[in-house]
Structure formats: structure tokens, C-alpha cells
């Protein structure tokens, strides 16, 4: 049987948006509890093999230790990168790709999923949100997510029948490694990565969005409230910011509204190249990630070469129709 991958990011849900955005800290005991429930759900659906990232806080390891595991169920810890950074997730993803994981549970926010996809671009994911400012992962009960993991891993529900491939942005930075974003890439006037979150609208220069969701917070909503673009649309949106255009009143972060000057908006086709030039800081999926030097060139393009995302409702609906959880006496 194929394995279920487990990734829990200990660092998610603790950044400066707790302050700026009036959100509460997402504590690691709760993440541990979510992993427990997901594992229990997956085992209930028949999963017997798990492979997990050895996160720096031992979330998954401890979750397993605190769960009664039936005989025959195996867990394999992947060697950690030991950096206690996003590199842990990237390295774990690379290893999971080698380990024949049918589907991976990713606990974290957009940033965690982005890191995972950097390591394994076309993975099949069940992504649960452990933060506030997320577009890619969903809010769902972990037990149900676990059931879906088990159904897909055992093949009781065919992965391709319930998962769809997501869009992503590929970013080429001159003289540097390629990067990606799952939702948005923003060019800012900042000079530093600092505390990462994007909260000051006056720093924004331009943004490329795979998804412009009006029913979300953050950069995606800036596009979404002007020209919505859904996950299903085979194109993206390019926005410029600055005086002279329209003023948008939008939630830059959870519980945090700002007036943002919107310049031009245009739709971009798949693989159409969008260029930018340093100096700037590029923010990916809501977090300032890289300092771009003066004159350094950036090229970005949107495609549907992203990860496969499991639709939890569709998966459980199939299981119901096939009476997978029904036992006759």
C-alpha cells in the first residue's frame, strides 16, 4: 500500500500577524492534536503506512506517541534537515516524493505548502490551515481530512477522481535558484525580509496572482475585490499599485483593513512572462522572502503545473456512495 505523508510546520500561526492582525497564536499542542485526529481518521479508513517529517518541535513524533496505534500500522520518520526552517519541509517533500507517498497531509499556512511544493511540485495534498491568513489550505476537521488521506492512500477512492491540479507561479530570479508561489507573488519597496508579513500597503509595487479571491484576506483579496480569479480559471491576474488609480478598502490581513491604491489590472495567460526589476523585496504567498538587488531581473509565469489538491467533500461522498464505512452484521 502507498504511504500517507505527514508534515506539520511548528512555526506556522505565530508570526507578527498575531499582532498586526489581532489573531491568536496557534499553539503547537493544537497542531499535535490535529495530527492525532488525522492519523486516527486515516487508520480508520485503512491506512497502514505513514511517512513523516521530523519537525524541529517533534509535533508528529509526539502525536504518534500519544495515539494508540493498532498492530500492523507503520510510521517512518524522515531524517531532518536540522535547520528548523522552511528547508525542513522542502527536504521532507523531496524525500516523500521518493517514498511513494500517495497523498500528504500538510499542516501549516500558505508558506508551508509553498515550501512543500518547492520540494515536490506535483504532490497530492490534503492541506489544513493552522493560521489565519491562508488561501491554499482549507479549514476542515482533521478526522475527516484523515479519512480522506486513508481513502486515497489505500486506493479505495482513486486520487485522480477527487483531486485537481492547482495553479502556481514559477519565478526565475537572475543568478539565483528558481522559486514558486501558490497564490501570489508581490514586488515591494521593502529593503528587508524582517518579520516577513506584508502589512503596509504603501510598500506594494505590483503583484501577480494565480487566485484573486474576494472571500479571503491578504493580497489575494486585493485582486479578488477588483477582478476575481478562481482556482478553476485558466489564467491569472496582474495588479500594479500606486497613485492615480482606484482606491480599494480591503482586508490586508486578518482583522486589518487598509486603503490600497490600485493602478492597472490585467489578466495574464498561462506561461505569459511578467517581468520585474530590483531593487525590491519579493513576497511569495504573503511573506517577504527574498531581497532583490538593484538591476537584478525577475521573470514570473503562471501555469497549472502545481500540486494536486484533494477535495475532501468529494472524497467522502464517493466513500459514502461505495458504502466503504458501512459494515453489514
Amino acid at each position, binding site marked *: 500500500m502507498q504511504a500517507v505523508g505527514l508534515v506539520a510546520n511548528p512555526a506556522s500561526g505565530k508570526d507578527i500577524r498575531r499582532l498586526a492582525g489581532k489573531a491568536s497564536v496557534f*499553539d503547537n499542542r493544537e497542531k499535535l492534536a490535529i495530527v492525532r485526529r488525522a492519523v486516527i481518521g486515516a487508520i480508520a479508513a485503512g491506512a497502514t503506512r505513514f511517512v513523516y517529517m521530523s519537525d524541529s518541535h517533534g509535533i508528529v513524533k509526539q502525536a504518534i506517541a500519544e495515539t494508540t496505534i493498532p498492530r500492523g500500522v507503520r510510521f517512518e520518520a524522515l531524517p531532518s534537515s536540522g535547520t528548523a526552517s522552511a528547508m525542513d519541509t522542502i527536504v521532507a517533500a523531496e524525500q516523500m516524493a521518493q517514498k511513494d507517498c500517495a497523498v500528504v497531509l500538510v499542516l501549516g499556512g500558505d508558506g508551508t505548502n509553498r515550501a512543500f511544493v518547492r520540494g515536490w511540485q506535483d504532490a497530492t495534498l490534503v492541506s489544513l490551515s493552522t493560521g489565519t491568513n491562508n488561501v491554499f489550505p482549507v479549514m476542515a476537521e482533521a478526522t475527516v481530512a484523515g479519512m480522506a488521506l486513508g481513502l486515497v492512500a489505500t486506493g479505495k477512492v482513486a486520487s485522480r477522481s477527487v483531486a485537481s491540479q492547482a495553479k502556481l507561479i514559477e519565478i526565475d530570479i537572475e543568478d539565483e535558484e528558481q522559486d514558486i508561489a501558490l497564490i501570489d507573488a508581490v514586488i515591494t519597496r521593502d529593503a528587508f525580509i524582517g518579520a516577513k508579513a506584508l502589512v503596509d500597503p504603501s510598500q506594494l509595487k505590483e503583484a501577480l496572482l494565480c487566485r484573486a479571491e474576494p472571500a479571503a484576506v491578504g493580497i489575494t483579496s486585493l485582486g479578488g475585490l477588483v477582478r476575481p480569479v478562481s482556482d478553476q480559471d485558466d489564467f491569472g491576474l496582474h495588479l500594479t499599485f500606486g497613485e492615480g488609480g482606484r482606491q480599494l478598502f480591503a482586508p490586508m490581513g486578518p482583522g486589518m483593513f487598509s486603503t490600497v491604491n490600485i493602478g492597472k489590472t490585467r489578466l495574464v495567460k498561462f506561461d505569459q512572462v511578467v517581468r520585474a526589476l530590483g531593487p525590491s523585496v519579493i513576497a511569495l504567498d504573503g511573506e517577504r522572502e527574498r531581497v532583490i538587488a538593484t538591476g537584478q531581473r525577475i521573470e514570473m509565469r503562471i501555469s497549472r503545473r502545481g500540486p494536486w489538491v484533494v477535495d475532501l467533500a468529494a472524497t467522502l461522498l464517493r466513500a459514502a456512495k461505495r458504502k466503504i464505512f458501512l459494515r453489514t452484521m
Partner: protein
Amino acid sequence: MAKNITNKTLIDLHACMVRIRRFEEEAGKLMEDGKIPGALHLYVGQEAVAAGVMAHLSNKDQITSTHRGHGHVIAKGGQFSPMFAELYGKSTGYCKGKGGSMHISNMALGILGANGIVGGGPPIAMGAAFSNKFRKTKQVAVTFFGDGASNEGSFHEAANMAALYQLPCVFVCENNGFGEYTRQTNHQAVTDVADRAAGYGMPGVVVDGMDVMAVYEAAEAAIKRARAGDGPTLLECKTYRYYDHVGVRGMGLTYRTDEEVDAWKQRDAINSFEAVLLKQGVLTAKKIENVYARADEEIKEGVAFAESSPFPTEEDLLEDVYFVGATS
């Protein structure tokens, strides 16, 4: 966030970290050479925290520090001469030689003391914050404490009261992974001290304590929030001390590997900040050199001042136990 940060601020942050680093390196040497008595708990490795937080405080704002307090004192405006004099136990020191490293303080700079008692600071900072609110000033009190100290009841009581009274207080946990020789995983069941904030009804934030700009931005938000009357914040900075718990080499116990220490040094706050400032043209190699040279000059002066200063005398022994004179 960090909107329009000026080059001056960046240069000051850098200089502050360098001054702390050099002071501590020198103090460590002087202790190991037997010139400074007692026990020094050195701050090398954690400079970004003191620098990033203190950049948002004026002399009017208060801090409480810890046994590992030199960095806080320097970042809050402490001068090398009276600091070295204090470490030497001389009468010209910040505490007339009576306190030493673990009690170094200066009320004019808003430093309510380093502290020999782990967890001694948070209740005092909470009290100062209460006073700030009571007196309707816009002062903020910041308390620094370690991951180890977050297990003392004093921290929990102070956090609860600060949140209850919505006090202008910022709790800065410098999580360097150890309380003395005990690793964090062996002294608490949580991995992020910031998780505890939720239990007191205040925001909890984790930042990279090896990144001065990350600390700077997070501290800015927390201190602004406190100053605006919106209550306390628990800000956890993940950092590391390069030296032993006491002194440089300390007791020579093996409780961590050289590889672990080296991995953290790879992320050294000063080196990485210098790299960015060079890349952005804010500083040049020459200017950086000058910063170190100036710090070394200050050290030379400070040590000479300390060495030539007199020791306190017998009359000083019974002085300062009580306030004597007209009531203020």
C-alpha cells in the same frame, strides 16, 4: 511595517550589535584572566534581540533585564566606562560596585536592573507598566527573560496581571534553547513559549532572534501596541548563546555539540546583517571596520577607567541600604 526605515537606523542597529559583541568578548577575556571577579553570563550570539527591541525605546521607557544583562544595558544606552567599572567592583561603576554584573542598573536610562533571580524581572516590569498607566504617561516597560525563566511562577503571575490590567508591557522571551545546562525540551512541554500567551489573553509572536530586522519589526508592533494602550504582548525570539552559561568556556560540561553551536554561528546576526547592508550599499567594508575600531576604542577607555578607579570603602558598606534624608 518598518516603513521608511532610515539608513541611520540601520547603521545604529549594526553598531549596537557590534558594541555588545565586542564588550562581551572583552569582558569574557577579563573574567577568564581573573581581572573581573564573580560570575559573568555573557550575551554573545543574542545581540539582535537587545538591539532590535531597544531601537524603539527611549530613556523614559523601562526595561528589566536578567543575569545575562550586559547586552540590554548597552542597547539601552549604557556606557562602557561605568559598566566595566561595575564589573571590576569599583566605586565609579553604575552601582558603585555593589551590584556587579548580575545587578547592573541605571534608573536614568530606564534600566530597572539585571537580576540574579531567574524570573525576577517580569513582575517588576509589570509594576512599572502599571505605574506608567497609573501616571498616564506614554512609557512602555519591557521585560527580558529566558526560556528557563518562563517556568517561574513570577512570569505567569506578571503575564496574567499585565493582560488583566491591559498594561503597557512587552514580554520578550529570549529563547536560547537552554536554561543553564538543561535543554528546553527537558524543562517545558511546550516548544514555543509564545504559545503560553493565549492562556493569558495576549498575543504571542515568534520571531527569528538571529535576524535583527525581524526583531525590530516585531518589537515595533508590540511596543506601539503597548504605547497605544492596547495591552501587553509576548514576543519570543529564537536565539542562541555562543558561550557557556557562565563565562566563555564555563564548566566544560557537554550538553550540546560543537556542530550545533557552529550551525547557529552560521546564522550569526551581525554577519548576516553586514552582508545585507553591504549589498544595499548602506555600509562599506571600511565603514564596518570603523564601527569595530570605535567599539575597541571605547573598550580600551572603559577598561582603563575601571582599572584606575578606586574601590569602594568601608563607609560605603552601610550606605544605600535605606533612603536617608527628606522624603521626596
